């Protein structure tokens, strides 16, 4: 706006500035009205509700930190939290390794690479309901394709998958890695494009083999990408829900009940809004906490 500030007397400058502000807001407003009411307001309201006792018909009663104390002693909340961490602890590294491997494979000049890039991304845009229906059948203990294959390679007692409390969670993790890997592969591919070619050439003339080039050139150059992907993957893992709900409904028993599902159950099935909100605050704080850590670490690295 430099042209505006240098010309004209003060009053018209002020009018211009006001008009500029109004014009700016006219662009933002159609979206902001919706965004403010439907996203921003609920996020703020969440904290208030978490300190109240509130159900659909009743009024909100302020009960201080009682909901949070209750969470501390709630065994099913602990189970949900542990399941969420269990899921994340396997889902994050597995997805990272597999999507990075696929990206490296696709970054070569082989035939069929374009086809595979398209194919690998497809599970990510397929609905959870359809995916769950198919995989539940593939997992079927007696006649399912997976156990038939396992038996044919000599495993006589293959897992009961979603029917078994031990194997239900790994079964879910396999599906979610299968679903997500193509998406993260695309992000890694975008990151790989930014690695300078001449670094590889230099490494090659220094006699570095493929593995050494990967460790000393690719990985360091990819670090911002890897870091970013780890963070969104972590947030994605913490909020896992739809897949669990549709595939196992948290079962058998509580074997696959996760944090988001705990919130859903307390809120929408038991109408215990206040208590559900306090669990949601925990999810909120973990997610934001991780994002903040990312910012701090990122900044530190930029400075050093």
């Amino acid at each position, binding site marked *: 706006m430099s042209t505006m500030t240098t010309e004209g007397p003060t009053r018209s400058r002020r009018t211009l500035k006001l008009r*500029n502000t109004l014009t*700016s*807001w006219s*662009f*933002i407003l*159609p979206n*902001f009205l*919706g*965004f403010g*009411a*439907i*996203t*921003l*307001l609920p*996020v703020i*309201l*969440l904290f208030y*509700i978490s300190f109240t006792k509130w159900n*659909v018909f009743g009024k909100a009663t302020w009960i201080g930190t009682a909901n949070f104390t209750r969470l501390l002693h709630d065994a099913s909340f602990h189970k949900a939290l542990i399941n969420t961490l269990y899921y994340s602890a396997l889902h994050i590294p597995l997805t990272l390794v597999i999507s990075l491997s696929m990206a490296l*494979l696709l970054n070569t000049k*082989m035939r*069929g690479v374009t086809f*595979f890039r*398209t*194919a*690998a991304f*497809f*599970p990510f*845009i*397929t*609905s*959870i*309901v*359809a*995916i769950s*229906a*198919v995989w539940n*059948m*593939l997992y079927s203990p*007696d006649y399912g*394709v997976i156990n*038939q294959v396992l038996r044919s390679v000599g495993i006589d007692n293959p897992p009961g998958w979603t029917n078994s409390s031990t194997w239900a969670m790994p079964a879910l993790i396999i599906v979610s890695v299968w679903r997500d890997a193509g998406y993260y592969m*695309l992000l890694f591919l975008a990151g790989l494009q930014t690695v300078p070619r001449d670094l590889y050439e230099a490494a090659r003339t220094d006699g570095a083999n493929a593995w050494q080039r990967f460790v000393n050139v690719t990985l360091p150059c990819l670090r911002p990408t890897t870091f*970013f992907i780890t963070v*969104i993957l972590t947030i994605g893992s*913490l*909020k896992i829900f739809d897949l669990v709900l*549709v595939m196992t409904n948290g079962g058998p028993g509580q074997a696959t009940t996760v*944090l*988001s599902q705990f*919130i*859903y159950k307390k*809120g929408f099935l038991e109408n215990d*809004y206040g208590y559900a*909100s306090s669990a*949601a*605050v925990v999810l*909120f704080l973990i*997610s*934001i906490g991780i994002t903040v850590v990312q910012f701090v670490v990122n900044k530190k690295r930029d400075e050093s």
Partner: protein
Amino acid sequence: MWRVLGYLALTAASIGVLVPFFWMAASSLKHNNEVFTIPVKWIPSPVVWHNYVEIFVKSDMITWIKNTLFLSVVITFLQVFTGSFAAYGFSKMRFRGRDVLFLAYIGTIAVPWQAYMIPQFIIFSKIHLTNTLWAMVALQAFGAFGVFLMKQFFDSVPHELSEAARVDGLSEYGIYRRIMLPLSVPAIASLSLLTFVNVWNDYLGPLIYLRSHSIWTIQLGLNSFISQYNADYALIMTGSVLSVLPIAIIFAFGQRYFVEGIATTGIKG
């Protein structure tokens, strides 16, 4: 040697990715008692096309598709229109509080929806908007995602371009309409496709907000069909194929825009 290993890996990965889809499509064309056989029958014989008629008789597939189509189109339009409009304000105009406001937009992207779905539901209940298709429209049309994606794109358009247009006397709306919109067609395509697919596939939102059967979306309907006809494996697969088919077609045509959209929004968070 490396090349052979590479091709082997590529083939193995392709099979791993695609087999579930292949099995789904194959099973949708089988008689019910041929879905689970030992050994697995990969090619249906005879091919039972009738499943694709029966599913429409046994379920409200047409209603579900109509509702989902309505939501996907309306939400996509609003998301693209209000999102790109707001993104222009954030990217090309300067005003007090701009950066703080944009931070609020970005911030909510990092907050899982599950964390604030309850206060949101309470607000919708208070204004009596639950159990309507419009609740879903309100819920998804004004997301931060569209603003974010479009701003990423507008930021890449040189500021000199809009400055020059301003000097030539074009209003801000004129610059948006005549310069930015035509330039941003690829970004709009990305945003439209991603939004459309998200709405089409959404399960949790409709589960919470759409109670009456007449306003169910395809995901809700399909899931209820699966629990109702839980032994009709072939028909369940038929329904699943139908729910995936529109997305597959859109994806086949717009693959480039999906990839571009993911790459631009993903990487610069």
